[in-house]
């Protein structure tokens, strides 16, 4: 595999982890978050600072996970105070605040960000490590979905009042979703910092949050494979359509709109339905 291919593979794997992490919060638990890139950013900046201070991957990864998870808990707490309609805006606000602080903080590199992040001790094995992380993330999310936690999340997403009347303490479960999802985003952030070698504010802005949400929604809210599929497509598409580079964002915008307009359930469930239909047709 050439350097270009491994680079793309790494990026796809990171985006898969990101999509899966938001899927925990928004897809499984129904809490629409428009600020998820901030937690990605927390993980990345934490890693950048720690790595430059000399700490190795074995320490930066768990610390990035923790930092993002704690920040996620804080935002989660705040979001509990807000009416459901406003959750999306509140999370968006959290994202902007994160950026606002980062941009004006010299310790975090201000406008320029932090660069020259040292490589991991894994060297050439790093891309494969990232893929392993993505697989682990997928397995973890599948476990959550299958467990009673996923069951409770489904109830909270469907009807909070009904969930509460069954004894499900909805604030606690929403916080759990936030904590798990943001911690996983922190992992993605850590890997991204090593991958790119630099971190800067523009990589964690509102458009990125939208992109991540788009991956989850286009894949199919809650669907693990859907996230993988959508993350892969949306990462590779700009590469495939290099010749339309100028029109890239236009196509992306139209794509988002078309999918929502015509296949709001997401592409993966659509694929499943078509597959079932084909199987049914063959049986008949």
């Amino acid at each position, binding site marked *: 595999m050439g350097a270009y291919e491994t680079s793309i593979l790494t990026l796809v794997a990171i985006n898969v982890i990101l999509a899966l992490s938001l899927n925990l919060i928004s897809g499984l638990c129904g809490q629409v978050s428009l600020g998820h890139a901030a937690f990605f950013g927390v993980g990345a900046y934490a890693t950048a600072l720690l790595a430059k201070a000399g700490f190795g991957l074995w320490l930066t990864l768990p610390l990035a996970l923790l930092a993002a998870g704690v920040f996620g808990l804080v935002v989660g707490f705040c979001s509990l105070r807000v009416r459901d309609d406003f959750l999306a805006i509140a999370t968006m606000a959290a994202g902007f605040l994160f950026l606002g602080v980062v941009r004006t903080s010299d310790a975090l590199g201000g406008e320029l960000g932090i660069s020259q992040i040292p490589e991991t001790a894994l060297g050439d094995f790093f891309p494969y490590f990232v893929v392993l992380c993505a697989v682990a993330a997928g397995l973890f999310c599948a476990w959550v979905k299958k*467990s009673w936690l996923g069951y409770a999340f489904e109830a909270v997403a469907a009807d909070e*009042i009904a969930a509460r009347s*069954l*004894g499900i*303490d909805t604030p606690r*479960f929403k916080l759990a979703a936030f904590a798990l999802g943001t911690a996983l985003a922190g992992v993605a952030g850590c890997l991204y910092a090593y991958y790119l070698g630099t971190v800067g504010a523009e990589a964690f802005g509102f458009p990125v949050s939208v992109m991540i949400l788009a991956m989850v929604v286009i894949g199919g809210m809650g669907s693990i494979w859907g996230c993988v599929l959508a993350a892969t497509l949306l990462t590779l598409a700009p590469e495939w359509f290099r010749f339309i580079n100028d029109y890239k964002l236009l196509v992306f915008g139209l794509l988002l709109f078309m999918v929502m307009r015509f296949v709001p359930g997401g592409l993966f469930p659509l694929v499943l339905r078509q597959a079932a239909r084909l199987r049914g047709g063959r049986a008949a």
Partner: protein
Amino acid sequence: MNAKLQTQAGGELLVIDDVGVRFGGIVAVDGVSFAVRDGELLGLLGPNGAGKTTLLRLISGVVDPTAGAVRFRGETLNGLNAARRAQRGIALSHQIVRPFRSMTLLENVVLAAGSAITRTPWRALATVDRRPLRDEAMRCLEMVGIAALADKLPTAQPLGVLKRLEVARALATRPQLLLLDEPLAGLGHGEALRLADLIRSLNQRGVTIVLIEHNLAEVMRICPRIVVLNNGRKMADGPAAEVMADPAVIEAYLGEGAALAEH
């Protein structure tokens, strides 16, 4: 978690103690007191705006009283949210049905049966197997008579079925007290009759039930004891026949054009 306090058979399970609720100038409930005994089937009646819904919300935990207290097995419920009250054994079936539409009827009830597992996110995360509770859930569905529809989604089901699902779900949490919020609302005469009979039979199996209803005929028929609210105050409390013969109660209702015919 507090150890479950034992209630003597026939002892007081739920105590509404001089409870009042004000919303900035509007008095929804004022000085209401009564107790529900273990094993009782109590009907709570009153014209629109009498405060029945508010009282229900007081018990289920949506609202806290501005005066007085609600006590359950001796412990005051003030300050506990709806989920905590459900965990302590108060189950509620909603007036406007709230099935989880992405789950089958059985899955709806299994989730309710697993209320011990969903007590904390940790325990929920650690438990994967849903099968052990399927049998219990099926029994609840059987009790309400919709076991045949176990694998169907709620979206296509008629209201009568969904109302029974509400009851099944509430039952699956193994409650000490079952609150039924207008379970007969929206049902045709025959359906309402059958559901009322079901409620009576559940009570005969030992479930303590508080029934909030508009449907006077059925409530009179199945509830041995009735409490009537009007304008936020309790205006009657006693055996059904006595209460419904009370002239003050009749006057409160005649304005609604409701019939008080004996069943």
